[in-house]
């Protein structure tokens, strides 16, 4: 097994102290470690952090509680704890299911919700060991996926010339549930939280740290659902996933792993808004969701369009 190159390790005792280390430069935050430590072991990025700042020693960043009907989940809460929480399962079912379908049981026991929404996007050129493809996302000049094998890549075009996809399972659930992300500086609507930066995948400033997720109470009578298509059901990243919340006069549909950031399917929402969802309407919504989707030249990722369409349909029926 490849061993890590050396780094220093700090147990942070406050968010402010962790941010100080980030401002000093060449530091990386460690929560569950399942994305960061794998990435470091294989040296996929050109830069290797000098200092690892352990967030798990900061008090108060873990736990699930209800505050005035609102759900508050600490950033360090493990995915498995969210998946098993009776509170989350009862009223924010899409999130519980998304957490349950993330990665493998072991990764869910280690990985946190904060880490899950901040993980770097996936593209096998970007993620290949030893930075063998110095792509646009790493500050290079070429997107190797554009001409290469892009069977898992974006069906909604490039963002800043990058075709990688956001692989988070919890992200679309948070968007569908109307969540907000609490950081060390501000409160950001989940829908506006993801953006492709180099090399990150969020709008976070270099010294900004996610501290909690806040989710409003679902509208009365609303139901939510999450569906995922993956090659191996028990372990893999999504090929496409979809979260839906319907009822209470509102509908929110969000796909992920189809673009650089979670993709809110507003056209599909318009199709079903104010109507009772049945098979035909759900099918029409699925078609509307992918009306703007385009396979990349060579059609290698065309199959994802059909999967996205079907997931929107099935998720709507599951939450109807």
């Amino acid at each position: 097994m490849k061993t890590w190159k050396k780094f220093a390790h700090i147990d942070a005792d406050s968010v402010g102290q962790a941010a100080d280390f980030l401002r000093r430069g060449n530091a990386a935050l460690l929560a569950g470690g399942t994305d960061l430590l794998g990435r470091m072991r294989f040296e996929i990025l050109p830069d290797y952090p000098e200092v690892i700042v352990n967030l798990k020693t900061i008090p108060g960043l873990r736990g699930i509680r209800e505050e005035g009907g609102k759900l508050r989940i600490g950033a360090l809460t493990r995915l498995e704890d969210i998946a098993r929480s009776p509170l989350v399962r009862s009223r924010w079912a899409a999130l519980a299911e998304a957490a349950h379908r993330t990665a493998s049981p072991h990764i869910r026991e280690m990985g946190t919700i904060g880490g899950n929404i901040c993980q770097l996007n996936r593209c096998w050129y970007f993620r290949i060991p030893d930075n063998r493809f110095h792509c646009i996302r790493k500050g290079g000049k070429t997107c190797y996926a554009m001409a290469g094998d892009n069977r898992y890549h974006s069906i909604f075009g490039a963002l800043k010339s990058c075709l990688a996809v956001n692989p988070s399972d919890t992200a679309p659930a948070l968007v569908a549930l109307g969540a907000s992300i609490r950081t060390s500086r501000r409160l950001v609507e989940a829908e506006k939280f993801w953006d492709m930066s180099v090399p990150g995948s969020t709008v976070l400033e270099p010294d900004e740290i996610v501290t909690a997720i806040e989710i409003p109470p679902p509208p009365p009578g609303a139901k939510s659902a999450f569906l995922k298509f993956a090659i191996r059901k028990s372990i893999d990243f999504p090929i496409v996933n979809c979260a839906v919340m319907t009822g209470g006069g509102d509908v929110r549909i969000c796909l992920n792993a189809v673009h650089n950031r979670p993709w809110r399917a507003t056209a599909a929402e318009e199709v079903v808004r104010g109507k009772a969802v049945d098979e035909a309407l759900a099918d029409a919504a699925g078609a509307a969701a992918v009306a703007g989707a385009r396979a990349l030249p060579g059609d290698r990722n065309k199959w994802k369009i059909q999967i996205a369409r079907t997931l929107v349909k099935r998720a709507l029926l599951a939450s109807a």
Partner: protein
Amino acid sequence: MSEKKKAQELECAAKGISRRSFLRDAGLAAAVPAVAPIALGGDASSPRRETGAGDGPERAGAECACPGEVELTVNGERYHCTVEPHWSLRQLLRDQVGYTSPKDWCGGQGACGSCTVIVDGRPVLSCLTLACECHGTVVETAEGIAKEKHPLVEAYIEHNAFQCGYCTPGFVCTAKALLDRNPNPTEADVRDALGGNLCRCGTYQQHPPAVIAAAEELRRDRSRS
């Protein structure tokens, strides 16, 4: 366990550790004694130290900001080890403590479950866990599960739930963690819990009946006692 093995297992030696200058500036390096090596006697709580090189900044490369020393319980015994920040728990267990059941298959990507150990009741991947973050934890490996004569061991043999056996320690640890949490799992529960463990021999079908049989045996044991 032989005395020699025990002695080997207790020998948790580390390479030299020194501080980095910016940490000293930041006043954060309080707890990093530079000792090389540390040898432990029989009493793990008061390690005998042989002082080595100083902690000058000239010792390039070996910079550390974690306490350097961790005390953890592995399979019921306490160990006091000196670790470098970039060591994985798997490395600590195999190379320092001497338990070789956490295997490596996927190369440390967290993709196979072969290195699974139980840390504070949770099945985790020891390849993606930093050793220096395991201070105060209780760790169980497949050796410990075998030592306590857990019914999983017999059930795995009985149901031929392995072929080459390489992935078995990871499966057994994951199954043990499941049974600790859920003494009466359904087949679906077992499939779900073992979903992160890969087996190239393809013994997947045999695992659920083996784990369910072990659960039944455990319940029988409990009703007897």
